[in-house]
């Protein structure tokens, strides 16, 4: 087997790190975590930002992607640990002759950024000096696991149908997790970069409130109303609240309100990256979610009980691989009360590859049969008294005969 290039990731256990490690491996890299490892299959070397990295971690490394960030303790004084920590890491990579270092910076990185985070990222960027050391200024990352800022936003959007916020109209530049990972890996293997800083964010902007509304609609299938609040009074209010609830503080508000817009179209073009609009980027989410909902209803209908999680996952994979990949447009009552399908299930019409309701029910049936919870309903290995069996057949026959005309009418639209 030919060994792929070796990639060292710091902060590999984080929101971006875990996704990046997986993407890198799919891309053929041998991934090593410096610090905590996202999962036991990724080899790791113990390390904390500020320490000298162990020599064996960097020996033979083709690239290092530096994601680790140390959040300052509230009220901490003195120099931020991220700056000397990164310097130490860089000294080591230079010593080992690592041919590429990519530092995960932020789109908010500026000497005069509104928030401390942006100012800090800017200062860390200044520690990168060698031509092989690049900064990636990352926009608002969405998708991937429900973690990081994205996870927080998801929670927020789900929490309330009306969201008052500061700077809702501000333009932001999102990037989907897989696009970001692709971009970082491209930076890691790019032979001749033309600049020191690359913006990894959508070159076109969307307002923050529109972004949140899109997330609400496509990811969570619910409407969201965003009410813009003026910054000044809110900051004053937050200052008051933060004395009681330290999680809500000035810095957070400024971080959201203070994102600058960068012009990175040329960076993206140089990298050959493709960045989708948020609507396109969230579409698979929305689809998958809708398929999941459909699967839960159909499996419940054929099983008579809630399907086990694994079976639901199989339904989604089944529809994505063999069933056309799109949810049917089933009305909400059928999705919430699957038993109603008994009245609306079409009669006959096993379509061949037309992805109709009948075909999906067939797939649901096959899934039900694939595990004992469903198979036990179909196959009677214990036997039943004959009279009971006959009586059962007569009873079901009678019910089905009554249902038939109803299904012929109601089911017509699903054939």
């Amino acid at each position, binding site marked *: 087997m030919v060994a792929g290039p070796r990639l060292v990731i710091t902060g590999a256990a984080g929101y971006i790190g875990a996704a990046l490690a997986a993407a890198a491996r799919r891309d053929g890299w041998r991934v090593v975590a410096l610090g905590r490892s996202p999962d036991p299959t990724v080899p790791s070397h113990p390390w904390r930002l500020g320490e000298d990295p162990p020599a064996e971690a960097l020996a033979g490394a083709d690239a290092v992607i530096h994601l680790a960030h140390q959040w300052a303790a509230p009220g901490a004084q003195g120099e931020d640990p991220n700056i000397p920590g990164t310097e130490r890491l860089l000294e080591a990579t230079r010593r080992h002759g690592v041919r590429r270092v990519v530092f995960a910076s932020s789109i908010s990185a500026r000497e005069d950024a509104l928030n401390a985070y942006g100012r800090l990222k800017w200062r860390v960027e200044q520690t990168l000096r060698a031509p092989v050391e690049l900064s990636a200024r990352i926009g608002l990352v969405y998708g991937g696991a429900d973690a990081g800022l994205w996870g927080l936003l998801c929670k927020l959007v789900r929490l309330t149908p009306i969201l008052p916020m500061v700077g809702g109209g501000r333009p932001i530049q999102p990037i989907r997790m897989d696009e970001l990972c692709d971009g970082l890996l491209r930076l890691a293997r790019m032979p001749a970069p033309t600049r020191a800083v690359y913006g990894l964010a959508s070159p076109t902007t969307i307002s923050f409130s529109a972004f949140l509304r899109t997330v609400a609609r496509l990811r969570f299938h619910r409407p969201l109303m965003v009410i813009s609040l003026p910054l000044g009074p809110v900051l004053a209010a937050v200052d008051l609240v933060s004395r009681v609830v330290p999680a809500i503080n000035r810095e957070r508000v400024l971080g959201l309100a203070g994102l600058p817009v960068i012009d990175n179209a040329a960076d993206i073009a140089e990298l050959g990256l493709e960045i989708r609009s948020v609507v396109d980027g969230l579409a698979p989410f929305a689809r998958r979610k809708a398929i999941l909902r459909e699967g839960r209803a159909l499996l419940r209908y054929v099983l008579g009980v809630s399907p086990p999680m694994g079976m639901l996952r199989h339904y989604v994979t089944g529809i994505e691989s063999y069933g056309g990949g799109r949810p049917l447009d089933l009305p909400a009552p059928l999705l919430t009360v699957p038993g109603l399908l008994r009245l609306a299930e079409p009669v006959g019409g096993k379509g061949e590859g037309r992805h109709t309701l009948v075909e999906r029910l067939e797939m649901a049936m096959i899934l039900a049969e*694939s595990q004992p919870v469903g198979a036990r309903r179909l196959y009677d290995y214990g036997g039943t008294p004959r009279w009971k069996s006959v009586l059962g057949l007569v009873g079901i026959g009678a019910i089905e005969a009554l249902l038939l005309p109803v299904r012929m009418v109601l089911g017509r639209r699903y054939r």
Partner: protein
Amino acid sequence: MSDARPVVVVGSGPAGVSVAWPLVEAGLPVLMLDAGAEAGPSRVAADRSSLASLRTDFGTGRSWRHLIGPTLSGLRNVGYASPKLRTSAAPGFGEDYAVALGLDASGFRAVGAFSPGGLSAVWGAVVCAFQGEELDPRIDAGALDESYRRVAARIGINGSDDDPLADYLGRGLPLQPPLPVSSAAAALLAKKGPGGDGLTVGRLRTAILTRDLGDRNACDLGRACMWGCGVGAIYNSADELPALWGRDNFTLRWRAEVVAVESDGSGPVLRLRDGEKVAARAVILAAGVLSTTRLVLAARGGGQSVPLLNNPAVSFALLSPSRLGRPLAAVGHGAAQLGFRQIVAGKGELFGMLYDADTMSAVDIMSHMPFSRPGAAAVARRLLPAVMLGLGYLPGAYSRNRVTLAADGGLKIEGETSADCAATMAAAGKALRRSMARLGAHMLPGSFRPYPPGAEVHYAGTLARPEDSTADGAIVGLPGVVVADASVIGRLPAKTHTFTAMANADRIGRLWAARLSGV
């Protein structure tokens, strides 16, 4: 000086392997080319539990891995084709086939696969010998008889000559002891009909081991045949490849799709998909009827059209009310339990087989019920112990399909049946319903349904006319090109035909082995 060029056999299906053996045994250098990729891990794990335990035992966990496959390929919709393509075929089986052949089929369900062992990876393994009038008169019956015995010994066939169907299926073959039949089947066998109604019910011959043979094991009676065999009891020609491979004069190449048969003046040359050319002393095509026919028609050039035989087929369900409420069998085999032959007065006959309904996926049975899914499930649960599912075949003479090489090199198939096919099928259904009822098995109303042509995958006879091939399989007008699969069998009785195609391939192999090593 001896010729260094190999004899090239195209295809590792039952026909390819059968024609290869005599050539290899004669010491000729044989190169087998197959378009399939080397067999990956089988979908069936050897330690799979019995069907009953997969269905009921929560402890085994992961039943789904066996029932729909680890990659969920069992979820693909195979339409009206055999459910086995869903329950036991490997992921991707047959998917690239239609595109590679440029298939354009109307009114015909064309099934094929580029895969080790060809369609024998999923076949039902029912074997019959053709006798007397059933056999294409061009084929030397004496030589074929010997080949039947050679093939039977090689692949392992179970059955009994002490059986009502033995005369029909052919006596005198080396047979392993018959598989035990299920209680439902035994009940039917025990009830001798009054006779005179043209029905004979008996044991089948299947290429399923009841005794270990080479690396293959005897049936473990786990009843999950429909989901593939975990112990190698059901014959798959790919299982013979290691033994062939063990011979010094045999070579096998995977992913070697032959796209054209050409000639360089001194002999045939095969062109592969990637452009490579392989020169051969002789080429023996055993790529399955559709693929072989395409290669031959393309090599001969011109817009030709040839007939394609198949067996018009039907499926049906029989209910034995006295069996309602019985527990399903946990032990046994899950292949066809019984064979039947129904003579239709003045109209020929229907041959077929009966399966215990619970050995199939109930979902496929339910899809024929006009009930809601929960209703159908409840009905299926109660009916399964008492139902046998049947498949029946009419002789190929009732088919009228045509195959044409399209201008773009693709294969156009037009499915058609003879004018009297539908009426004959209906008459056969009526006769069968009556005679089965006398045995206490009642045909479920509406269950007697003809298949679309082609779905039963008994293809033959495309190159069997004297203007196309000689009785030895040599293609007229293409020196050095021989066809060894069912393309050169010009008559299909109501029986399944693969055993005969294998025997004929063995016969052709022996003939050409003698000829080629005599050079």
